[in-house]
């Protein structure tokens, strides 16, 4: 096989793996949008907050340490122990559950039957609040998240693929990050679990019912408030998964919340209401931007990855506004 061809394969593979990470973030948006028709602007910040909380518990940080020190004049920073990763994940999950309950109690409960735009504005407010709150609780410094997962290129794949090309072709094997592979595995497991939950359990069915018709859902005895807590808790769980995967890859820092912006074109491609859409959309964006950078990038001076996804999304908006898998919007006149 020629080196050119193998390079292209490598680019596509890396694109797919990056795409999975985009899908992870987009998934959180889809879950909440389906169940309540709210576009949750704060999903990216939720991922950041979840990752911060995870690191905080792991490193044994004292929550609100800076605040406590400033008020009481003390000098505390950590508990002095390190929490096992599993326990830290469970604690972070509990925090996200608490977060879901508070969001319902403090915000959603008072906005029942409001216009979607008002709920959207509320989530913008929530995003800025949570951003500041996360900083206050865990500090604003960049943190490394070590989940104990293998990182770096896989030598096995490199060794295997190097033999495919001719001896002096200048191809030294494919570079595939092990963490990306694990993230892809986690994403697949997450989607399978979520699908099974929504298809085969009572609460999953209630989630789908609420997504479909609020009035009918009430009439069969489903409490909307309970379902909203469940939805936000699941979105929080997805945020934790996305946040910890991205955090392990590139550190837990403010820019983590901006991956939400990458989820937007994914959603426009896949449709706001479709879980498979979020997956396929993420993969298309991932592969598309990597291939574009590889093929066209050198001609236009590179850095196409920053805008390619949005241009693709714009094209989609013109020709297929409901996305690849979204519900077709038919307006009866």
């Amino acid at each position, binding site marked *: 096989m020629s080196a050119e061809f193998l390079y292209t394969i490598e680019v596509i593979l890396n694109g797919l793996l990056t795409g999975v990470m985009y899908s992870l973030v987009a998934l959180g948006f889809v879950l909440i949008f389906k169940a309540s028709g709210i576009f949750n602007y704060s999903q990216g910040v939720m991922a950041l907050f979840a990752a911060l909380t995870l690191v905080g518990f792991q490193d044994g940080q004292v929550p609100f340490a800076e605040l406590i020190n400033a008020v009481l004049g003390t000098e505390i920073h950590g508990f002095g122990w390190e929490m096992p990763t599993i326990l830290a994940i469970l604690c972070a999950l509990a925090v996200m559950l608490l977060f879901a309950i508070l969001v319902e109690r403090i915000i959603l409960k008072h906005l029942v039957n409001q216009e979607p735009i008002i709920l959207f504005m509320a989530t913008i407010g929530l995003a800025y609040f949570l951003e500041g709150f996360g900083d206050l609780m865990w500090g604003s410094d960049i943190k490394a998240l070590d989940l104990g997962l293998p990182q770096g290129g896989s030598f096995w794949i490199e060794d295997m693929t190097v033999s495919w090309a001719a001896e002096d072709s200048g191809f030294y094997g494919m570079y595939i990050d092990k963490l990306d592979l694990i993230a892809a595995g986690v994403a697949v497991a997450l989607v399978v679990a979520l699908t*099974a*939950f929504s298809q*085969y359990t*009572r609460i999953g069915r209630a989630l*789908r019912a609420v997504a*479909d*018709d609020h*009035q009918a859902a009430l009439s069969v005895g*489903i*409490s909307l408030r309970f379902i909203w807590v469940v939805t936000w808790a699941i979105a929080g769980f997805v945020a934790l998964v996305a946040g910890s995967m991205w955090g392990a890859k590139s550190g837990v820092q403010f820019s983590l919340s901006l991956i939400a912006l990458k989820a937007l074109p994914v959603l426009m491609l896949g449709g706001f209401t479709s879980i498979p859409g979020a997956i396929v959309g993420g993969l298309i964006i991932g592969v598309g931007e990597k291939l574009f950078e590889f093929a066209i990038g050198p001609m236009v001076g590179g850095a196409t990855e920053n805008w390619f996804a949005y241009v693709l999304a714009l094209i989609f908006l013109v020709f297929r506004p409901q996305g690849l898998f979204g519900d077709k919007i038919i307006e009866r006149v």
Partner: protein
Amino acid sequence: MSIHAAEAASDDVAYASQEEAHGIEPRRIGGTVMEMKNITLRFGGVTAIKDISFDIKEHEIRAIIGPNGAGKSSMLNVINGFYHPQEGEIWFRGAKRGPMKPYEIAQQGIARTFQNIALFKGMTTLDNIMTGRMTMMKTNFWQQAMWWGSAQREEVEHRRRVEEIIDFLEIQAIRKTPVGRLPYGLQKRVELGRALAAEPKLLLLDEPMAGMNVEEKEDMCRFILDVNDEFGTTIALIEHDMGVVMDIADRVVVLDYGRKIGDGTPEEVRANQDVIDAYLGVSHD
């Protein structure tokens, strides 16, 4: 004893013995299930329901009729908790009902269908009817998330009951079809199935035959009568087709402009001058 009464009594006996031969409990109209006392409902300055009282007895088919805008649907929405009346009391199964959310009322055993079908369009017939069992499933979130033994057993058991309802309504062929794709008449039937799945103490039907052709209407009539007969379900229904109402209802309450103008058996209501006036208009000379 008059001759008529004796005749009626012997008819009853024949009816009962025939049903016992089929192994079915004879249908008897029992005590009061629901009582509405002096209900008044206003929307701003508009009074939709004015001081209306009536009751619904166990195992009966109670029809609510009246011209457009009479307040029939509002009445059903009051019973089911979508609307909260400003005045009046609602008694359900011997207890006065406080202000409750619609889903709490559903959990108490009141199921309903809607005038403009409110099904979960993206879900299959089977899933739609399964949502009707929602109030009867007991396992909690964590058991379900883990798909533990009890959650699994529960799912299987409820699925069996749902299959019985599907057989009863003769919709086996569309079990796995998303209901959004079904024709109108079948959607109405699925909606009835979803309400039945809750094994309601009181079943509310909002124009179950609206927009149907004669054949579909006959089918629906048969299902309503069968539900009432076989399961003994108490039914309150709104219907425009007077022929249908007179055929299937045990008692009828007639509303006009938010007031009650008649209440009684179909024969009594048909003979009521106010009802005739409301339906045919009055001459003003």
